């Protein structure tokens, strides 16, 4: 699907927005699903639609087309986290004892449960969008894939090399390159850097 025309979006063009909704939908839905699927799977679509609604509010602050998806992802992330927090607060308030921190192992592989330690939730929408755009630009897809395999899917370097058809030394190099790019991206986000320093103490 082709990206929409940003200027037409900012002018409220109906056809441009139809295109934008289709183009942004996979992003907002995937982000909402990452956060909500283990706990509130029925609300994924609702949050994704709300994120698109908020995009309408924010579109005039967008300066270039490549800011759209990071902003949409950022909005969807924050809305999902907010939805989880509200639901947790309600459940605690009503005295229910159901554990909301017990997603399945499979769920854990796909999402991070919301917690007070969520670093990204401490960034505002624009900061998170900026970080995501930075990471998307500077982390090659193959580096990201290796990082995901290693840290989130708990695959060994040997397993990754085998599965992706890479020399095992290349897996190590990809990990190193990814880590360096992430550190640079974090260093460009003063608030995140501050949070990390607090996290490390």
């Amino acid at each position: 699907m082709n990206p929409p025309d940003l200027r037409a979006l900012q002018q409220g063009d109906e056809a441009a927005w139809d295109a934008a909704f289709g183009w942004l939908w996979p992003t907002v839905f995937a982000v909402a699903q990452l956060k909500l699927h283990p706990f509130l799977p029925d609300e994924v679509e609702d949050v994704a639609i709300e994120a698109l609604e908020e995009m309408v509010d924010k579109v005039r602050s967008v300066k270039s087309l490549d800011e759209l998806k990071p902003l949409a992802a950022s909005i969807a992330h924050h809305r999902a986290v907010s939805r989880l927090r509200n639901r947790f607060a309600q459940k605690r308030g009503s005295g229910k004892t159901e554990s909301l921190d017990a997603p399945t192992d499979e769920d854990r592989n796909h999402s991070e449960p919301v917690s007070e330690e969520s670093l990204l939730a401490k960034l505002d929408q624009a900061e998170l969008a900026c970080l995501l755009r930075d990471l998307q630009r500077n982390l090659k897809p193959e580096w990201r894939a290796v990082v995901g395999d290693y840290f989130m899917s708990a695959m060994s370097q040997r397993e990754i090399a085998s599965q992706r058809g890479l020399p095992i030394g290349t897996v190590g190099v990809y990990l190193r390159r990814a880590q360096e790019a992430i550190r640079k991206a974090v260093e460009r986000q003063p608030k995140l850097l501050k949070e990390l320093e607090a996290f490390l103490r």
Partner: protein
Amino acid sequence: MNSMNVNDERFFDLAMKVIARQASDAEHAELDALLAREPELRAEFARLQADVRVAKDALPLVNAMETTGGEFPAYARERLQTKVRQTLGRPAAKKEPDRSFAWGLRWWLGLAVATAVVMLVVLPMFRPPTSPTIQLAMLESGGTRGSATDEVALLKQTWQTTVVHSFSDAEALRAWETNPADERRQPTVKIIYDATAGEVRVLGRWKEKPLDKTFLVERDLATTLKLVKDYVAEQTKR
């Protein structure tokens, strides 16, 4: 990467394995020994933990941005398009003013203004005056200057005017009395106080009727002027 020495590479490899919970006991022990030997690496180890933390939080979102699957639900379209209209409300294309109408309006306004000017300025010229113009003059006698001044003031006061033509020469006064230019412009009644003769003359024309009467100053000028004023009012009433 190229600047990393073998120890750095080993430290990074061990740190990654420990952070990913994939290190063996032996590798754990090796990292601990390395950190004990080089305490400055502890800070770097902590930073690597933080980097991984960010990666685990953020990379799924980055990957989500590149997802292409999934179809936008049709039922949400109207709700979102309504939001677009309410928020961005494509401003109604600015309606081009109808130039012919605008010019027509201007033309009619101009005509109205011109007509008003004509009504105010030109028409009164053709409207019959409701009263004649009163012109005052005085032929001074050879008496005291202060007396003449009082008489001029009395004339002005009686007809509420500021102009009294003063003559010391009878011929000049006569020329003024008979000047036809005044009469051509509009009906005029001339009132002349001849101090030497002790009389007030009324000359002029009103609605084709001539006015020509002389009032003698018998008691005092004020009384005579009142009689003159009454006469003129009577002769020029509508």
